[in-house]
């Protein structure tokens, strides 16, 4: 049973990040919440982070320049063998193409539709996988 100590919110939408942070707070999560507002920023963070710390990553699909899938591909070599980092795609609406791309990338653990609710966060923290 993995106890999540850190949550990464990777999304260029400020309003969504604020909202999600509030939802996470209300779920009772006591760990670190890191907000990253672009693919590049997220990549730089992940490259220097301690990846042994159990982390849940909420990755928005629709980001300018580098979208969620592209970021997922680029961090795959770093995260492939780490059982401590769980990556989920977050989206306002999913299309069959999105789902297919998510299936193709091994590193992606699942899919969530926005907005993240307090209940959803509680459930995920209780059972990360």
């Amino acid at each position: 049973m993995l106890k999540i100590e850190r949550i990464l919110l990777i999304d260029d939408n400020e309003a969504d990040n604020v909202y999600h942070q509030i939802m996470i707070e209300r779920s009772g999560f006591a760990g670190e919440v890191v907000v990253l507002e672009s693919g590049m920023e997220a990549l730089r963070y992940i490259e220097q982070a301690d990846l042994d710390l159990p982390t849940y990553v909420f990755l928005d699909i629709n980001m300018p320049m580098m979208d969620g899938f592209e970021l997922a591909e680029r961090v795959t070599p770093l995260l492939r063998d780490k059982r401590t980092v769980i990556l989920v795609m977050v989206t306002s609406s999913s299309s069959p193409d999105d789902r297919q791309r998510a299936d193709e990338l091994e590193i992606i653990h699942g899919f969530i539709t926005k907005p993240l609710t307090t209940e959803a966060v509680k459930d995920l923290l209780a059972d990360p996988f």
Partner: protein
Amino acid sequence: MHVAPKPANESQRLAALHKFEILDSLPSQAFDDITLLASTVCKAPIALISLVDAERQWFKSRVGLDVAQTSREMAFCSHAILDPARVMVVEDAASDARFHDNPLVREAPDVRFYAGAPIVTDDGYALGTVCVIDREARGLDAVQVEALRALSRLVVNLLEQDQQQRERARKAADEAMRRTERLTAIATQALDLKSFVDRDYIYRYVNQMYLDYWERKREDIEGKPVAELVGEQAFIEMVKPHLDTALGGGTVSYEGSFIFPTRGVTHAEVTYLPARDADGVIIGAVVRVHDIQRLKEREELLRATVNMLERKTMEQQRFIHIVSHDLREPINTIVNFSSLLSGELGEDLSAAARRYLRFVHGGGERMKLLLDDLVHLIQLENQAIDTRPVDLNRLMIEVPADLALAIARAGARVECGLLPVVAGDDSMLRIVLQNLVANGIKFARKGVSPVVRVDASAAGDWHEITVRDNGVGIPATHLDNIFDMFKRLHSRKEYEGTGLGLSICRRIAEMHGGRITAASEPGLGSCFTLYLPAPRAAQTLESIDA
């Protein structure tokens, strides 16, 4: 009266007779000459050429008798044909056991003497006789008997000749017709340029079309070598190889373009064919050029149109993507934060502020739903509809399961009869059933638990699937326009909804080649009928209630 029996080969004999197409034909001089001769030589007042048909004897020619035919039963000739080799002579019919009570003997024409020589074909069938008749008993001498026989042979000759003439006439008609058809076929190819080149690669003949297209005079081309007219290089590289193929017995066909003096660039189909003389020897080549410029231009137009349509479709797809993703984000923000506001600051706000916040939140929620429905509708237009067997019974297990929450909240009951398997798109048909059942649950009467029943029947070429409810009903004036986009009959306070559901249902019905109608008794309930085509190939399960 003895009726002569029918000969053993009667059916073949009749066939032979009918083959000559002589019965009921007009009198003819040649046959009349024969009866005249017969009457003269035998010195008899009556002479006949008689043909014995199934039930009658019919006279092709007659001297001294007014009737054109008699029944076979009383015909002397019916006896004569029983012995094709002999001339039958009856010297005194009145004392002949066979004929003495024959009407022809007892009454007019009062036959006493009869002599008939059978008319016998090469195959041995006796078609009738050449006969002479007298009212006094008498006989024939040997010369007269021979004469009668000769005359019967003459009749056969005439019949054969007429027959052959008819055959020839028919063949000639066939030939003429076929030739006309050939000429017509060639005429339609008259729009082609044609040239004939001999084995020495010299133009021997070109048609008018050729001269018109190239704007040349006949004397400038005929008699001149091809190389001189098309240019040495073009001749060696392009024309000669094809001519050689044709001269060798082969055919070459290809599409190319020519630059004509006035017409300019013209696409054409070019064919090289061998030309043979009456003995089949190849004496040259025919080159045919078929103008397909018009065709090519239409092809180009078509391609341009297809490209434009493809571009438009891609633009539409992008539009859908924008609508569904980029619009949704700000809508989510409105909904999320307005609900946060009412939640967090609820107590601190004035009643008015709380009310306004509720409107903001409600507006956002509605936008979300509207967006979902709109995207649905747009995607429908772009979707290629699946046509596979869809078991509606299975859908009617899944739909109530999806609506479980709404059913439970409303205390509703959803029932279903036996439904058919139809040809169509699984997800689209599910949307229709879901919409119709959900409506049946939603538009319930106050205090009455909603009951929604789905049934099916088959009527001719159609499946009729009905969704009946016991809800508030629909006024007659609106039974048609409820299928319009955004049409709502109730305020949002009474029943929520975007007003798009039924227009989506109608669109799906249309895409399946069917339609959807509504019937209703306000205050009692409504019934929606979905008509889907029932092609003979699809399986149908009859509804138990039908």
